[in-house]
């Protein structure tokens, strides 16, 4: 009886769940921001120390920067009195009216005012070209490449330098300045350095002794001399050897110097990529009967360039910042125009220099960070193949 009762009880207790139990959240200690903090910031003693140090650094630096740039900043004013503590009787941060007044100068330099629309059109054309090339879903990207590498350089030259036949007076390059110079120099450097760099890298790995020797000498010579020396030589020594009429334009000298420099560094970056490609890829390509250029274009370079993207972008960012060296040949790039403006007695205050340099920092940060973000996205896109 009891047995059967027990049996019955067992069978009655026997239970098959019809529906799923509602999912329980993980224990409180394993979720939420606290768990994230514990996991990521405070997991080991070393981690704890680092977290505290970095937090202190932030607490020390960020409020000061925010205070200077925004809280204490002066937003409007006519001259230096607006940004002087003794006049305003308060603590003074960044002097923005100085920047507003000098903004056209930072953008165009001494470019003649009636002709500045040409620079605006150039900026617009360049933005269209960059957008067309970099936005992956843009229509007709093949046309975009033609536009960027053929139409844009010619149109920019006609616009910026001038073409009296169609009514655009010539604007001498010594009047160019500010963002215009920074953008022109870095665009030329970026556009020319990669193709020249690839050719040099292939040349350095070539079996043809003459080509190889030339590439090695070029790369090693250029890398062995500081850019500043080359620019200085070009601006000071060249006019001594060539009569004035034949000596090339100063900006052109700087452009050639910077493009050659970037190309030499780029060549080494690309060579690293080429060396990382397994020999089997080359042999396979040759085995199916591809010519040297087909092999490079279809098999080797796409892989080599893909793995060198971080280094290519690194070189580009370095190049972008190196463009400030053109001030040596008397051309006022963005940084130099800021340095000039901060000397202007009209705005001479203790905060003027700092404000000017903050503008330069923000400008370079936006551009360099933009380049680096785009490169990260490209890397992620190309790396999908490997993840599968």
């Amino acid at each position, binding site marked *: 009886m009891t047995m059967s009762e027990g049996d019955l009880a067992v069978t009655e207790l026997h239970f098959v769940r019809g529906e799923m139990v509602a999912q329980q959240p993980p224990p409180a200690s394993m979720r939420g921001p606290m768990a994230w903090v514990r996991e990521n910031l405070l997991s080991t003693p070393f981690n704890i120390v680092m977290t505290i140090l970095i937090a202190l650094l932030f607490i020390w630096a960020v409020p000061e920067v925010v205070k200077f740039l925004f809280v204490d900043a002066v937003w409007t004013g006519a001259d*230096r009195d607006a940004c*002087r*503590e*003794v006049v305003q009787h308060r603590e003074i941060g960044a002097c923005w009216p100085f920047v507003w*007044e*000098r903004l*056209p*100068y930072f953008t*165009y*330099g*001494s*470019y003649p*005012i009636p002709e500045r629309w040409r620079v605006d059109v150039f900026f617009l054309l360049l933005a269209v070209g960059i957008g067309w090339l970099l936005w992956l879903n843009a229509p007709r990207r093949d046309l975009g490449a033609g536009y960027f590498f053929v139409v844009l350089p010619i149109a920019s030259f006609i616009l910026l330098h001038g073409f009296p036949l169609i009514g655009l007076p010539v604007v*001498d390059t*010594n*009047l160019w*300045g500010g963002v215009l110079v920074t953008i022109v120099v870095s665009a030329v450097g970026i556009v020319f350095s990669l193709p020249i760099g690839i050719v040099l890298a292939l040349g350095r790995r070539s079996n043809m002794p003459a080509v190889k020797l030339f590439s090695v000498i070029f790369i090693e010579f250029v890398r062995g001399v500081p850019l500043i020396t080359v620019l*200085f030589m070009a*601006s*000071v020594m060249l*006019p*001594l*050897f*060539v*009569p*004035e009429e034949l*000596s090339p334009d100063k900006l052109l000298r700087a452009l050639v110097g910077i493009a050659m420099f970037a190309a030499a560094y780029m060549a080494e970056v690309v060579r690293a990529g080429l060396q990382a490609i397994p020999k089997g890829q080359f042999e396979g390509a040759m085995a199916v009967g591809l010519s040297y250029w087909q092999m490079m274009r279809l098999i080797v370079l796409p892989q080599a360039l893909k793995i060198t993207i971080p280094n290519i972008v690194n070189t580009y960012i370095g190049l972008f910042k190196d463009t400030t060296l053109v001030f*040596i040949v*008397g051309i*006022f790039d963005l940084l130099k*125009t800021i*340095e*000039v*403006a901060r*000397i*202007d*007695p*009209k705005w*001479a*205050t*203790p905060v*003027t*220099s700092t404000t000017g340099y903050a503008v330069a920092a923000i400008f370079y940060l936006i551009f360099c960070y933009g380049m680096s973000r785009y490169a990260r996205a490209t890397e992620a896109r190309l790396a999908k193949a490997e993840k599968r």
Partner: protein
Amino acid sequence: MKRIAILLALAGIFVSQGASAQTLKTVKDRGILNCGSNGTLAGFGLPDAQGKWTGLDVDVCRAVAAAIFNDATKVKFVALTAKDRFTALQSGEVDLLVRNTTWTSSRDTSLGLNFTGVDYYDGQGFLVRKSLKVNSALELGEASVCVQQGTTTELNLADYFRAHNMKLKTVTFATANEAVKAYDAGRCDSYTSDASALYGERLRLANSNDHIVLPEIISKEPLGPAVRHGDDQWFDIVKWVLFAMINAEEAGVTSKNVDEMLKSTNPDVKRLLGTEGSYGEQLGLTKDWAVRIVKLVGNYGEVFDRNVGMGSPLKIERGLNKLWNKGGLQYAPPVR
């Protein structure tokens, strides 16, 4: 080694060719004057918010262009650093150099330059706090002085203190900017540099009215335009453009009254403005060369006032740069 020597010799030939050429003709054919200047010194050469160059040195360049072309805008300003300014002039990259350059014997001789005059008598001075209650540099005996290192300023400072048996405490900095910042922060009692620069730096201090520039000038820094050796006509032109500006101030000819002055019966004014004689033609210019200068740029006093004097934020006293008959050193030989 031999090849380098040959190369340099060739370069020498080019250079001497460049120098012996007729600069005036070259400039006229080119249609624009190439002028080497300083793009980064307030009051002497600095682009303004519109990108237009302004300054005392810059206006001397404009005056030369005005005399040649009757158009003060036909100047291409080449920004030069202290290091490459002389090479730029020697190589013919610029036709004249007006870049707050001190006239010294070695520059005038071995560098192959000719200084055409002095457009600003500068000298090393001291900036001190008013609260220090010092009225003369001779009272700086126990004071510490901020100075940019590796400059002639630093050497002049040591010489001056030694000559007057004063104890010197210098605090040196790599750049002028750092030295000024340190002075403003109270690291030293005084800051020393060229007096013309002191007025500009003073404006950048937290409370500029609490600081004064002491009257003592402890070094001679005559700043002036320079041309290459070997072209006497060009040397004469640049020299007399500056003289014309000084003479115009002395004769009371300004950019405003120059047209009325053309009717003047004063023989000095008549000769200067070309209503009598042919002094402009003798220079290789036109009869009205000085009229063009004064009308388009101004006389010396106007140019001084507009760029560094009371009409500018720098508010530098005329001091040594007053006319000779007002107690200064600015003196121009007569036009006759």
